[in-house]
């Protein structure tokens, strides 16, 4: 059976600096996975390399709904069904969300569901006041995350990578974002949450929690892994990783 996301031996570097050192991950359709790790472990690099950002020298395999995306351009990966919700969504002055979703629909002429998804997602996330404003400009942290979740709902991807979706949010906003993620759970999509705090996992039933240290996954398990991290932190994993390399 095809998985939503299959990543095998993903490696990435900037210049001489190796950041991803053989990263493996499988996310079946219908599941929500969390990747946790300390600052500098390569979590955000993973999401950017998967999306195809050109800053990195990358190798390995990444399949989205069975389609190899390594070697494709950023927009081709998006159209193959990959969606990245950004930790710091870029502000685009002078371009409204409505203009962007219009362009997204034009970019996917075979997908006739855009108008319906725009209407439904806008309603569900109360996005109306934001749709005619410049993208992410002057929005609060919580509003930016909501805007990203709105675009995710409009794009209807097969794989969603939510990079630090809980960073910079107060506890109420974390709950709201968690509820949006739970709403995403669907047999048509695999979801990956990247975070370095376990607190959002109190509100999301992650099927798997992966611990990332020094450029690779060092442990995978159920929600209990997050509880272990909560108690002991990343120190033991970091020492183990340091002695292994």
């Amino acid at each position, binding site marked *: 059976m095809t998985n939503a996301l299959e990543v095998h031996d993903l490696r990435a570097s900037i210049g001489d600096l190796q950041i991803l050192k053989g990263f493996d991950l499988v996310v079946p359709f219908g599941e929500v996975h969390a990747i946790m790790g300390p600052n500098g472990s390569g979590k955000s690099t993973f999401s950017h390399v998967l*999306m195809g*950002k*050109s800053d990195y020298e990358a190798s390995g395999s990444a399949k989205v709904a069975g389609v190899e995306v390594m070697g494709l*351009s*950023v*927009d081709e*990966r*998006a*159209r193959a069904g990959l*969606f*990245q919700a*950004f930790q710091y*969504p*870029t502000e*685009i*002055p*002078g*371009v409204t969300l409505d*203009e*962007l979703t219009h*362009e*997204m629909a*034009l*970019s*996917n002429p075979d997908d006739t569901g855009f108008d319906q998804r725009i209407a439904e997602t806008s309603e569900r996330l109360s996005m109306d006041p934001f749709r005619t404003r*410049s993208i992410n400009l002057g929005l609060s942290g919580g509003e930016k995350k909501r805007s990203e979740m709105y*675009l995710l709902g409009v*794009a209807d991807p097969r794989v969603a990578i939510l990079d630090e979706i809980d960073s910079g949010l107060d506890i109420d906003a974390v709950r709201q974002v968690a509820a949006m993620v739970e709403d995403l759970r669907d047999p048509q999509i695999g979801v990956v949450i990247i975070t370095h705090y376990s607190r959002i996992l109190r509100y999301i039933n992650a099927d798997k929690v992966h611990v990332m240290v020094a450029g690779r996954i060092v442990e995978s398990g159920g929600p209990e892994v997050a509880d272990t991290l909560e108690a002991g932190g990343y120190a033991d994993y970091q020492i183990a990783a340091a002695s292994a390399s």
Partner: protein
Amino acid sequence: MTTSPALGQRDASWMAARRAEAASKVPALSMPSTREEIWRYLDLDFDPRLDAFAEAPGPAMAADAIVTGWKGEVISIVDGFATDASLPLVTETSEDELLTKETDLFVAAYMAFSPGAVVLSGDRLATPVLIDVQSTGSNTTFPGVHIDVPAGSDASVVVRMRSASDEGSVVVPRLTSVVGDNARLNLSVVQDWNYATRSFARAIVTLGRDAGLTLAEAGIGGLLSRLHLDVDFVGNGSYAKIYGAYFGEDDQTLDYRYFMNHIGTNTRCDMFLKGAVEDDALSVFTGLIRIEETGQKTESFQTNRNLILSSGASAQSVPNLEILANDVKCGHGSSVGPLDENQRYYLMSRGLTPDRADQLQVRGFFEQVVSHIPDDVVADWVRARIIAKYVTAQREGRV
């Protein structure tokens, strides 16, 4: 004073005398030197043929989208001549008051050869006015407009400039305005000359007490198109918002020299110009905020942002401050750079091709100024022209 006996006298004796005097000076004046700051960066190595001026208007151009979409009065100035001969022309007194700033070759030539500026005042400004300035041939033309906004009233004027043919010509437009106490002028200038035209426009706006100006300029055409603007904040409490959008390609030079002169107290100005250049085009912005000793409590800001879309294109951006008062707020910002990589990445991550992502970014870049053009038909026209230039360049691989 908005009317006087001299108005409407195209061949008033004072004008004939003035012209003769000015014309006698023109041959002695040489082309300005690009060593002077105000002419710096330009290529002035051409024959301006200033005495080869149009002695009569050529055939008027057909109405286009801006003219047909216009919901107020339309005044045509063809090769410097108002097609409606009943329109009042500038008087000697106002000409003296308005043309005192400096004398150079182009000013002298304007004074020598212009058939006289059309004056808009009083009831004529009760509804929005479109001034359709046309250059129809290869002769040098000297179109002039004076807008006299009476105290306490609102006026809305669009000046658009266009060419009938592809022939190269020199145009020396002059735009003056006196905005009375408590009056407001909404002025848009759309420059759309052909790519063989060299245009040296001079504009001077004087603001009375609590008078307001909104100026939105769009620079699209011209081989060399210059706009030398002074806004004199004479009246206490006068204010202005100044927007500009320009897009150069090919060998175009788009040249802006903006001088904000704060003379009264409590005056305010926000200036925001955005431009893009591709191919071998050059843009120049030099802005000066000058605050006189009398200009206490002035707040004045200028920002100029430039996109460089091809490696052969360049932009000069030189904001300056000259502050003689001690209780003011002033600031300036300027930037020159390529399209933003983060914006491109973000838009591509939403499924847009790089070309579409860049088109959206260019549109957004200009939207911050184009959205301030008060007339929707004109604003849409400017949007469409800019993006069409960019999309064509993309298709031809020039950016």
